[in-house]
């Protein structure tokens, strides 16, 4: 297993955000993590990426237990993430935003970092914004910039929190294709999204959470026909 979550529990005051969640992810999987608002999806991603420490349970990446590592340590092991509300560095230029992850890694010379950041800038179609501060970008463009920042260091395990939110519909289908391409190239992807049509189109497996509890885990077709999911979490029949 590439990532193994065992009996992870997290609470905030009186709120039980995750209750004994256990999930395993194999290398190369494309998994959709779904559930209604407040179901614990982002809390789980925050636990995996090190922003939260689980109250109990463990998270293993390969042979290493990562549940006590700081976020930068987890990132360096090859787990990258994006955020539901984009966390780009608003008062730095778009190019500087792209440079940062590669500079933290320290593998590339500064000139190589510059070259790569311009290359990625083209791929995310923001080449006209390179020297502008990131605060001037739209919400959708910030989502693309976050993806671009991930691509700068090429992590093997991607945690994508609502990457389609605010992205122009035309760009959304390109983004879906791009994520599928990344997955074909060997990346393991966990995708959190409320865009059910996208989730069912591109994910090979779905994990459903509700009130911090794992409800079901399986192929999209099985989840689609699961009565509990349809009635409790998707609010009725799902249109792919």
């Amino acid at each position: 297993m590439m990532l193994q979550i065992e009996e992870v529990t997290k609470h905030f005051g009186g709120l039980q955000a995750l209750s004994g969640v256990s999930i395993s992810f194999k290398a190369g999987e494309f998994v959709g993590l779904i559930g209604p608002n407040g179901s614990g999806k982002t809390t789980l991603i925050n636990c995996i990426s090190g922003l939260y420490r689980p109250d109990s349970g463990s998270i293993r990446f390969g042979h290493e237990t990562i549940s006590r590592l700081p976020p930068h340590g987890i990132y360096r092991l090859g787990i990258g993430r994006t955020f539901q509300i984009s966390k780009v560095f608003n008062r730095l230029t778009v190019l500087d935003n792209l440079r940062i992850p590669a500079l933290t890694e320290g593998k590339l010379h500064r000139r190589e970092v510059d070259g790569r950041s311009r290359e990625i800038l083209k791929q995310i179609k923001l080449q006209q914004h390179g020297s502008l501060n990131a605060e001037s970008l739209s919400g959708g463009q910030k989502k693309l910039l976050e993806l671009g920042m991930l691509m700068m260091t090429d992590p093997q395990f991607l945690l994508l929190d609502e990457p389609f939110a605010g992205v122009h519909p035309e760009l959304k289908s390109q983004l879906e294709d791009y994520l599928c391409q990344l997955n074909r190239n060997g990346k393991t992807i966990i995708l959190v999204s409320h865009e059910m049509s996208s989730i069912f189109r591109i994910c090979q497996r779905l994990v459903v959470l509700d009130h911090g509890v794992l409800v079901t885990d399986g192929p999209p077709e099985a989840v689609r026909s699961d009565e509990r999911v349809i009635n409790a979490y998707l609010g009725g029949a799902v249109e792919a």
Partner: protein
Amino acid sequence: MKGIFPAVLLIFAVLFPFLFRDYWLYVATISLYYAILASSWSMLAGHVGLISFAHAAFAGIGAYTSALLVIHQGLPVPVSVLVGALVAALFGLGIGALTLRMRGPYLALTTLGFSELFRISITAEYGLTQGSIGLKVPLMIEGDRVLSYYTGLALFVLTVVTLTGVLRSRVGLFLVAMREDEDGASTRGINTVYYRLVAFVLTSAFAGLAGGFYAHVVGLVSPQMTRIGEMGLILAMSVFGGLESLLGAALGAIILQGLTEYLRIFTEWRLAIFGALVLFTLKLAPEGVLPRAYVYAERLLDRWLGRA
């Protein structure tokens, strides 16, 4: 424009002893002490987003360390000043290691507490420090005012060049990223605690360096230099000049120190005047007076040159 201004300022600073003597040269030398403190504090507050109230205390650590080493160990002044900076850096490392893992106001509160603790300790340790009377310290370069001024100028240039170099390096990029979004920075591989500590230790060292210099220019160190009012003055200088501009904060220090001399008749009311100045700056030019002056100067230049 932004490149010309520092050059003009430096030329003026180099020529200053030829234009002014004695009293104003001494005032300018003391201004350089505050300029080092304000520019290093502005790096911490403006670029890293850390509010420390111990900057004056770190200057005090540098000053007392240097003074005691010269008096009791007979070390040469330049060596003792450097050791003072190193000791201030070590205190910065200790306080930083304790507090910089935490978020929010903990650093501000801890540094405030440490600052008072240090001031009370040096006041109480009469046998070593002469308490509130102050410790008489040998002057540097036998009290030569011109050479003392140039030493201060060299230390100030060293401070600004070093800190600017750090800010323009990848470390500077990381520091700004951390200030902008700490979670975003840490999940992109930045070890936020480590880099905050680097910035804190570095600026503490420069505060210590400034303190050592001050001790051997004035010839006296007393707990007065570490009181909270002094910290307020450094804060006022930085905000007035521009928190995100090292040179702006330094210029703020020089202007306010000059004003201090003019406003002597107002005694402690000077601080109230500075407080009002800070409030007006925050209201009218929150980025600081110097960055705003750049904008106006560029507009004037454009108009003068007939550019659109």
